[in-house]
């Protein structure tokens, strides 16, 4: 059915009261999503949100689409079954950093390598919100929380590096303070055929307030965020003074164009088959002096799992004919009594 009237955010708001803490970054992600889907004019009944457990995972309740609030960590697995069984649907997966990188990392990584047709959105607040403030797999070393009064000793995962190491075909990062960038990234993820992984920096103002303030705060963005744009030189800072170059030891380094000019600055290529440069970019921001890249690290084409299954089904039918019980029952030796 062609869209007749333009959809609005309201069309995507369910009748359930939103129950996040006042000030939580989840609100702005919800708004961005609802507005985006309305803008895109997607069909609500062909859209499904699947989530695990956590604050972030309450998301499906607030979307007036089909949805399932499942169990902790398993949303990518459940969504995998749905996406394979129903290639006609738009399936989104929502979860927190604990949901997706602690208990659920394995399902996430397998969904990525299999290129299941899903948009997987991870709200990274570097904390367990719903269980009231334990450290998560993205919390920084030494973090003091209820479960780590002496400081966490766990080296955090870098979600982008991890996804790239798992053969993901679409990998991106954005943050809850920039609606238009969120929408741009989510839209691109939605367009991508196969599994898309989007990390969203999200503020938990109750248990980990200001975790990203030094990067995403309005005053800090220019110097601290590096906005990746396809086919453009990788630059940041006021007047794009700085750029990113590649050293012969394979490490990236910051180039001050005032000193070195722009010649050695790398050009970003989202579509590069080899993920090595995307991986190198994902390592940026480890130290205070480096900017944190935002945007699309990788967007490559690879047959998605659902398409492969459909092709196999068709091939099997071509070879063996449409499934027929009478034939099946006689597919090996039979005898009459």
């Amino acid at each position: 059915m062609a869209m007749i009237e333009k959809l609005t955010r309201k069309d995507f708001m369910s009748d359930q009261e939103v129950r996040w803490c006042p000030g939580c970054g989840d609100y702005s992600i919800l708004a961005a999503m609802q507005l985006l889907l309305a803008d895109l004019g997607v069909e609500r009944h062909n859209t499904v949100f699947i989530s695990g457990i956590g604050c972030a995972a309450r998301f499906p309740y607030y979307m007036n689409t089909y949805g399932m609030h499942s169990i902790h960590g398993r949303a990518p697995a459940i969504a995998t079954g749905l996406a394979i069984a129903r290639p006609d649907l738009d399936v989104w997966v929502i979860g927190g950093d604990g949901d997706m990188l602690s208990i659920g990392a394995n399902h996430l990584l397998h969904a990525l390598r299999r290129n299941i047709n899903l948009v997987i959105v991870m709200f990274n607040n570097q904390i367990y919100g719903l269980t009231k403030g334990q450290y998560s797999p993205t919390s920084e070393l030494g973090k003091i929380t209820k479960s780590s009064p002496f400081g966490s000793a766990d080296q955090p995962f870098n979600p982008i590096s991890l996804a790239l190491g798992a053969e993901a075909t679409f990998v991106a990062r954005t943050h809850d303070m920039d609606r238009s960038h969120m929408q741009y990234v989510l839209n691109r993820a939605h367009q991508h055929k196969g599994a898309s992984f989007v990390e969203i920096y999200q503020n938990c103002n109750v248990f980990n307030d200001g975790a990203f303030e030094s990067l995403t705060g309005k005053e800090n963005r220019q110097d601290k965020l590096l906005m990746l744009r396809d086919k453009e030189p990788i630059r940041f800072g006021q007047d794009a003074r700085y750029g990113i170059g590649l050293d012969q030891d394979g490490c990236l380094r910051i180039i001050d164009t005032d000193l070195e000019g722009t010649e050695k600055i790398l050009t970003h290529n989202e579509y590069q088959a080899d993920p090595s440069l995307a991986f190198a970019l994902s390592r940026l921001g480890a130290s205070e002096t480096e900017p944190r890249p935002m945007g699309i690290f990788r967007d490559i084409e690879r047959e998605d799992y659902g398409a492969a299954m459909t092709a196999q089904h068709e091939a099997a039918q071509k070879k063996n004919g449409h499934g027929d019980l009478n034939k099946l029952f006689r597919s090996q030796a039979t005898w009459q009594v």
Partner: protein
Amino acid sequence: MTVASDKRRINLDALVIRFAGDSGDGMQVAGDRFTAGSAIFGNDIATFPNYPAEIRAPAGTLAGVSAFQVQIADHDIYTPGDSPMVLVAMNPAALKANIADLAVGGVLICNSDAFDKRNLEKAGYQSNPTEDGSLDNYKLYSVPITSLTLEACKDIGAKPRDAERSKNFFALGLITWLYDRPYQSTLDFIKLRYAKNPQVVEANTLAFNAGRHFGETTEAFESSFEILPSQLTPGEYTNLTGNMALSWGLIAASTKASLPLFLGSYPITPASDILHELSKHRNFNLVTFQAEDEIAAVGSALGASFGGAIGVTTTSGPGVDLKSETIGLAVSLELPLILVDVQRGGPSTGLPTKAEQSDLLHVLFGRHGEAPVAVVAAATPAHCFEAAIEAVRIALMYRTPVYLLSDGYLANGSEPFCIPDPEELPDISIEFATSPNKILSDGSEVFWPYLRDQDTLARPLARPGTRGLEHRIGGIEKADGTGNISYDPANHELMVRLRAAKIERIADSIPPLQVDDPDGASILVLGWGSTHGAILAAVNEVRKLGKKIARAHLVHLNPFPKNLSEILNRYETVLIPEMNTGQLAMVIRSTFLKDVVQLNKIQGIPFKVSEIKAALISLLDGGQL
């Protein structure tokens, strides 16, 4: 030399034969072919393959012995037989591992070539048992199977190492002659199966024929035997293992429900073959997904069910444990889901290739909170077909997870399967919601995902993609009707009781339990699952002694058939044989407050008919077990 016609031919009503050899000796193939030939001939058959430990042990050792037992008969039989009447032992280890089971006076055929010093030592023999008189209780035939096979193949230029591989066909040929089995089907099979390798076809054919001729021409065997076709219900038959029957049942259920089948599975013995079988039939409306683990396997199946497919997951042993959490979610979501558990010996890794009935309490109670699911158990290999359809019927009609129990014995054992007319299989399709089901006070029409059918207590299912019925479901407690999150205490109690009542309601749609009690007995044997055959055979034997015994077999373990209570009360004594420490017995005791007598065997191998018979006789004589 005499010719065949001079030899005596003796009529047998049944034969139990076991092929035993090293893992590499092809005993499973030999057993399989013997079975197939007999089946096609029209005998009733029942098989029991017994694999060695999972990894191939060094050749010639006890750990590497592989065996295949089959019973063939001119009448209905229910088990592969207690003790073989014929044992083929391809090496000393195979002899050692199996001789204790051979009936006294039974036929023992040993491959004398393999009884050399090294092999005897590996098997732990001090002296050669085929020569030291220790096998005097049996009819021993020492046949140089290896060298005769090599001899038969010498002209085709195969390397001895390759030619030797055909020795299982020599043995099969010999047995084929001895028990007067049809041989053409085996020759055809050889051609087809090894088509890619003409030399192998030739070697196997030569060896097979050499074996047949050896029996016919040597003087070693005084007589041959024949087993007439049995009087099975007329129809077209094929020989099926439980795993195949179960797979076909799922495909049939999907066809008869007009819904796609989705299998999410992770390989594990002895359930893997269901995954293998289903993945071959992608031309049906089905897809198989090998998940990263059992949690993802059941998760993906649940996701597919949400999408309107028949979500199925198959596993065994430890895999069952891992699915508990997701099944609890499915209970809360009230979605159809089929959980196949091919039970094996536990706890933990346990005895992976052996059978046990020790998961019953786990599938009934192994989830946190109050999370009841339906449970159906297959009784025989062929019955796995029907049980699968029944499980799917219940799951769809009541929107509930259903456990379908099989075990390692049913999974790999086989029997004739009477091919049904697809038209006559039950229609198990259901209706999905397509429009709102509730008018609110303000006049607006909405879809309430938990507005139940008053008869079945099932909730309506609206598949994603249905315009206007968008809704959200989840694992937090929800208000009956709307399905919205609810922390209300009274609603929680209502929902817990409704979920339980819905499972109880299933009993409305299942047939009453049939009791097989021709004589008005006072003792009832109550079975479930794979003990079916052994119980039935034992009861028949006891009845032949003129004694009265009643028998009933449960296919529905949750809920029970409605008349079970009444049946139990009818009998003074109820005997429950189980391959566990008494799990059904426990549930029967607590549900009906009826004492029962337990007969338990926890050895990873099925009951012998004689074991159950002995228990029955002891009970009939007023004894205790």
